[in-house]
């Protein structure tokens, strides 16, 4: 199924996940990696739109991604105080690694895509770059040269 968001965003999501989880992570490792990737993005995003804004967008993006991955809805049964995305990890851990990777990427891309809809691709990509600099090798090389 096609992932939401712009091509640059989708590519950044894939790179950030791979970088964090490695190439042969099991579902548990991948769930932990997805959570770290989300948290760095959420941290940057909170600076811009506040924690309340991040919570609202995350909840909406999880609602959207559950259409393709209905089993992510199981997360709703967890303790809400852990934060919406923390509970996603619980569901990812119980999937095959390939399925978990696909769902984690879709959840992050949906969040990014929602952000692109609301504040535009240019601004979204600036936040994404700040959150996951390693997902932009050209930028990292440029910074190293400078």
């Amino acid at each position, binding site marked *: 199924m096609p992932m939401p968001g712009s091509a640059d965003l989708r590519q950044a999501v894939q790179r950030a996940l791979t970088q964090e989880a490695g190439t042969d992570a099991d579902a548990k490792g991948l769930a932990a990696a997805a959570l770290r990737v989300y948290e760095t993005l959420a941290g940057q995003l*909170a*600076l*811009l*739109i*506040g*924690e*309340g*804004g991040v919570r609202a*967008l995350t909840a909406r993006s999880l609602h959207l991604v559950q259409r393709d991955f209905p089993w992510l809805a199981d997360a709703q049964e967890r303790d809400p105080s852990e934060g919406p995305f923390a509970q996603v990890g619980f569901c990812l851990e119980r999937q095959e690694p390939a399925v978990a990777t696909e769902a984690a990427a879709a959840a992050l891309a949906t969040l990014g895509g929602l952000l692109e809809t*609301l*504040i*535009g691709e*240019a*601004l979204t990509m*600036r*936040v994404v*770059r*700040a959150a996951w600099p390693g997902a932009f090798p050209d930028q990292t090389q440029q910074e190293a040269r400078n």
Partner: protein
Amino acid sequence: MTDKVPIRQLPTGVPGLDAVLGGGVPEFSFNLIAGAPGSGKTTLAQQIMFNLAKPARPALYCTVLGEPAVKMLRYQQQFTFFDAAKVNDSIRFINVAQEVLEGGLSQILKRIVQEVEAASPSIVVVDSFRSAVRKAEREPAGPLEMQHFVQQLGIHLTGWEATTFLVGEYLTAETSDNPIFTVADGLLWLSQTVDRNSVVRKMQVVKSRGHASIPGLHTFRITGDGIQVFPRVIVGPEEKPEPAPSGGKRRPRERVSTGIKLLDEMLGGGIPAGYSVLVAGPSGSGKTVLATEFLNEGVRRDEPGVLAIFEKRPREYQLGAEGKTRGRLIADEKIAIIQARPLDLSIDETLYELTKAIRRLDARRLVIDSLLGFELALAPTFREDFRESLYRMVTAITAMGVTVMMTAEVEDSYVDLRFSPHGTAFLTDAIIMQRYIELQGEMKRIMAVVKVRGSAHRKELRAFEITTDGIVVGEKLSDHVGLLTGQPEVTKGKTPRADGRSRRRRGR
């Protein structure tokens, strides 16, 4: 060496605002942008910030509890000044909503101080500052805490060499006993008023420490490019170039030809350059034709002109062979046409558009067609002081050395002699009157020069015709009396011909 500390003024990037502020925003100043919801405060703050922010002069934008940040970013990026490339580069947005909810003003202060010390921003915006304060106001120790907060914020931000803008929703009634108004170095008040169907935005510099600003209410407009301010034009007596050197002879003014030889003679050799001329007459009497000839003559003499149309649709000026010629002149920058934006104009906005066109073309002539149409194009709130505003506008333009011709429609009346519907005639330097009279059972047009300030002119009434070649002025109607009463009588046994030239009557 000077004893005074130099205060550098930062250009705001908001067209017209620097003039209002007397040069720009003083560096390291602590400013409040206040006004009711929807008055344009956030737009103004962001426009200034995006203009000033650069890597060497970073900016910090703190959103508090006002407009949700995601919505603010969504809408503000529609403006052309919003440069996404500056976000997270030279502009850092932070949200302190959590601090407001958890710890109130002291927490907000702590967070802002933390951020300022970490990033050393040169520009700091707190939006909306009022939402942070409102919560504190409900606490028993609220007013004291607020005063402390404002003072500490002011001290800290100035100490860290930041130029600060607090954005707050305030009503004018709240200005007394409010510490923020005391602490602030600059106070910019935005408002929008609704009068009948029109909305007019106004801005006032209520306070500006350390430098002079232009007093009064300045209109502004918000477009896709952001805010454009139209500074109120203040006309001082020295701006009217009139006085003759004491004891000496006044140097005669250069004369500007109307394009109609006989009319120039009636005016004493043309219109004195830099004068304002009123062409008054009833509907269809030929005012626009005369004004158009005035502009065309300017083109012939390499004196570009500006035509401000409030009467007809601009397309009507571009129809037919003459319209095609005019189209070429516009393309060649010999003539510029300013089209009215109906019903919500301010005089200052009109003046801005006119002076912009005048400067672009280096124009020497301006036609305003017509005063009544101009008045109708203004927002109702400005119609009340139309005379005063028109005076300011005309004085400002003539001070640029531009000769202004304005048309005014007046009803033909044979019991009184009026030249403009609102007594604006006395504001002008010269008046050309056009009227209809009945002669020999036919409607005829006549013209007279009523006044040319400080200059001799002819007083005669002359018949004129409008032909395909323009206005043709005939001889003076000296063989009639009572022309202005509507019941002229023939004298000396003569009767005028249609073209105004007289012929002897062949008996009774």
